[in-house]
């Protein structure tokens, strides 16, 4: 999955109406990931989830990776606010320890074992989470065009 700014640009390109609806607000986030992660340190992480920190401002998913020499490492992967997940019907225990995941991202500039959750998938490549609305999930309100 690509960055959301790219997604919005995609909408624009596909529209063909000259509706350059690039959101001004898309340049804002809680913090710019660019300040935290190092573009010169790409990582590919694979392994089981060990812990989920269901906290604000960002969710952190911990996983255990195994290096080529067999050494185990714990990494933390940064996601967004859990509020969005709650609204889509997910809860803290929806993500179980032991679940194998793949993450590609960039390591933190502070060189700790942290990375951004650029793309988090199951081992088969399926999205670990999927973004949508109006899914009928417990806390998910209908999509706007479904509003009565």
């Amino acid at each position, binding site marked *: 999955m690509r960055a959301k700014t790219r997604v919005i640009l995609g909408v624009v390109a596909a529209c063909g109406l000259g509706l350059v609806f690039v*959101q001004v607000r898309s340049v804002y986030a809680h913090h710019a990931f660019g300040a935290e992660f190092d573009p010169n340190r790409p990582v590919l992480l694979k392994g089981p989830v060990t812990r989920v920190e269901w906290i604000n401002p960002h969710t952190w998913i911990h996983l255990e990776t195994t290096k080529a020499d067999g050494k185990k490492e714990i990494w933390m992967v940064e996601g967004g606010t859990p509020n969005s997940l709650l609204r889509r019907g997910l809860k803290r225990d929806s993500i179980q320890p032991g679940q194998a995941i793949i993450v590609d991202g960039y390591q933190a500039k502070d060189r700790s074992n942290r990375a951004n959750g650029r793309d988090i998938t199951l081992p088969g490549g399926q999205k670990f989470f999927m973004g949508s609305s109006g899914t009928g999930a417990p806390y998910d309100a209908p999509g706007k065009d479904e509003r009565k």
Partner: protein
Amino acid sequence: MTLAMVATVWGAEIPRTPDGKPDLSGTYDIATLTPLTRPASLGERQSLTDAEAKVLADQAKAVAAATNKASDPNRKAPPTGGDGSEGPAGNVGGYNSLWVDIGEGAFKVDGKWRTSIVIDPSNGRMPPVTDAARKQRAAQAKVSRPNRGDAFWITEGISPGPYDDPEMRPTAERCLLSFGSGGGPPMLPVMYNNLKQLVLTKDTLVIVNEMVHDARVVRINGEHEPPEIRRWLGDSIGRWEGDTLVVDTTNFNDNPAIGASRNLHVVERFRRIDAKSLLYGFTVEDPTVWTKPWSGEILWPATEQRIFEYACHEGNYSFGGILKGARLLEAEAEKKVKK
């Protein structure tokens, strides 16, 4: 039932309080694909046709569906030097779409799909900034650069550098305010957590913003604090003009939202237009930053969704990591400079 009866008595299909005022209380989801400022390509066009609005909404759905497709399970790590992503994604990739909630379509006012939230000036864009503001923004841009993973401020001798002092970092990064202008005023849509809860009593309007849990308390028929009392979200007083609650906000500190100065003055207008929505209008005046006032309007649809707590200081690991990362990059840059 009480509300329905009162509405009938008044002959208007809006909920009313026991003393007959429009009841603004409720939760609203203000996410929209209509941008704050109109794309230049649309010129003076204030609205989209139904067909265009449908294309926009359909494309947003299509993009969401595309981004939910599986990734290559045998993919490699992303490219060294960055993935080229821009904005908050900062060359390292940003949020997956599941974390983001920017709405599913444009919003409609008086039967027209709006092309921008800004309605005055008529081109839908903010008026020009003052010379002083332009200079300040240029200086800021010099230190706010795309992420290359180096301490350019050391190699280029820029002092103070952008990470020298925690208090130089953006207020959102420090968990002090919502990013963008979510908490406002003016309160504008942001990337996620766009819910607002309003509670109206006879003498107070409380506005809870989900993002960063900002709350504003508006004193109806109150008077402003003396000018030396400054607040992050300003000091808000309200008055009724017919069925519209007009909220006047001044007394900001040095860092209000939307790039304004401490001289910011915002007038907001809250008007229930039916049982399911509220029309939120605002005028922004700040002679230090803009050459003239500007105004906007956005529909706030009521929602059955709930506001969840956003306790930003709960686990703001990012901030420590950002500052520590800057120290490591500085140490490396200093070595290079010495060589």
